[in-house]
């Protein structure tokens, strides 16, 4: 009678500590802290010498260990179905082994490596609320040389069901935080990119200019720039390879260098060569940026240009739109000593230029077809005489219709400029 009374007292105490556990686990959202709390509590509540949690990774169909106590060593990964924990994970049934060395399922390998002496084992599956396998919890050696008898199995089942739910929730939370962080990075990249673009264009002598940049969700390092230096207007459209913050910073660096060199370089060829030298230094990631850069003399209409691997612009004249012939030179950032030859042309009154990035011609419709250069040229044939804002906006609408509203896969940039009419 005394024995039963003592056993009952012990059960009540353990159930109470189980309640404590459920409160503690409900509070903990960080996965690592949660695992630590579970291991601590499991060891205490079930009076074990040590405990291990194996987390299940469906991608490799295996369990990876997280151990409590001083014997912790490197994480162990076991395929589902292997060993006692693997067996529990596979069958989702609790296993209790009173005498490990008398049981054929027990592998003494771990004991050999650590010097630990396993006597009794109690091992249970951890399941999510939806019933998916989250992991396995394994307790070794009931304290005091006893076995995991009495209500140990029931206590562990209750404990495991709480722990499984808590781990599943913590994993969902950390996945959500990771997704949020990636989202923040993208927003940061877009903010860096967009904040650097000029908002005001020169309007002297009837000059008409307009530019538009539609950023893609994840990829993108497009930019455009316009700045007035003396009698000339420097302008450029570029496209950095890569995505996210890396591409955004590379773009920002290119723009900064462009603004600095425009003030000192004699022409766009020299400017691109200097920018290229800077960008090529220590560029192990092999990021690169294609740039078409040019100057327009506002008074005379003389245009001097250089092209670093960028799609050539179109010249807009009364007779139509014609692709500008440019010398092919490497995109910036790769070949440190590359040279950039300049070309020259003249824009008469009312003549213009149309610049773009390959996000225009490589825009995709839902079927995966690319827009291509023919529709671009057809658009320019019809609209070449429109004012610059109509041109750039109209083209963005056109591409958007082709893509059927799907978000752009790559940044899309257009710039148009036109000299004022003759006076």
């Amino acid at each position, binding site marked *: 009678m005394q024995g039963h009374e003592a056993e009952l007292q012990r059960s009540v105490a353990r159930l109470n500590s189980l309640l404590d556990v459920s409160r503690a686990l409900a509070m903990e959202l960080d996965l690592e802290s949660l695992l630590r709390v579970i291991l601590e509590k499991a060891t205490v509540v079930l009076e074990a010498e040590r405990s291990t949690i194996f987390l299940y990774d469906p991608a490799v169909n295996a369990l990876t260990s997280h151990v409590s106590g001083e014997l912790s060593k490197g994480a162990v990964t076991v395929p589902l179905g292997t060993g006692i924990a693997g067996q529990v994970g596979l069958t989702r049934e609790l296993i209790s082994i009173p005498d490990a060395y008398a049981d054929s399922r027990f592998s003494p390998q771990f004991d050999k490596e650590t010097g630990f002496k396993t006597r009794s084992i109690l091992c249970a599956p951890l399941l999510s609320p939806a019933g998916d396998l989250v992991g396995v919890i394994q307790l070794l050696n009931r304290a005091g040389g006893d076995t995991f008898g009495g209500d140990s199995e029931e206590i562990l089942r209750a404990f495991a069901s709480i722990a499984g739910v808590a781990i599943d929730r913590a994993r969902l939370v950390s996945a959500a935080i990771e997704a949020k962080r990636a989202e923040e990075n993208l927003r940061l990249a877009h903010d860096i990119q967009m904040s650097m673009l000029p908002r005001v264009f020169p309007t002297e002598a009837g000059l008409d200019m307009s530019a538009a940049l539609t950023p893609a969700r*994840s*990829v993108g390092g497009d930019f455009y720039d316009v700045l007035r230096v003396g009698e000339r207007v420097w302008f450029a459209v570029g*496209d950095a*390879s*890569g*995505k996210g913050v890396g591409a955004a910073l590379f773009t920002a660096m290119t723009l900064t260098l462009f603004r600095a060199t425009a003030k000192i370089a004699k022409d766009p060829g020299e400017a691109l060569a200097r920018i290229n030298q800077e960008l090529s230094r220590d560029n*192990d*990631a*092999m*990021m*690169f940026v*294609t740039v078409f850069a040019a100057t327009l003399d506002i008074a005379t209409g003389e245009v001097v240009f250089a092209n*670093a*691997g960028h*799609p050539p612009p179109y010249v807009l004249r009364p007779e139509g739109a014609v692709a500008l012939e440019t010398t*092919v*030179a*490497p*995109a910036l950032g*790769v*070949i440190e000593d*590359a040279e950039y030859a300049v070309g020259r042309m003249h824009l008469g009154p009312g003549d213009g230029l149309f610049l773009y990035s*390959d996000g225009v011609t*490589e825009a995709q419709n839902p079927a995966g077809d690319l827009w291509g250069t023919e529709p671009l040229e057809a658009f320019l044939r019809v609209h070449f005489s429109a004012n610059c804002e109509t041109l750039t906006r109209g083209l963005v609408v056109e591409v958007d219709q082709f893509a059927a509203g799907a978000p752009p*896969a*790559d940044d899309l940039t257009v710039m148009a400029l036109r000299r004022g009419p003759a006076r």
Partner: protein
Amino acid sequence: MSPLGRVDSNTSGDFERALMTREGEALLVIDLSGIDYISSAGLRVFLMLAKKMKGSGRRLVLCALAPSVEQVFTLAGFTALFTVKPSIDEALGRVSS
């Protein structure tokens, strides 16, 4: 090796990992006849590979480029950085001679 499909921002990461497992080869011939599209992200993977291999005195040969793929290399101005052969036979022939 003979990759197939598109090398764009969605697939270039996998492509890069696949290539980097082979970058230790003294000579790597890549048959690009199965590639119908390369974006700038894909081009960057080839540049990284070329730089690494050149830096350690190994050779990279690209062959059988589709016109649209070759144009990507040409327009970006990077043809000079690569040894390009019209066919895999020529790529291997040159190699053995």
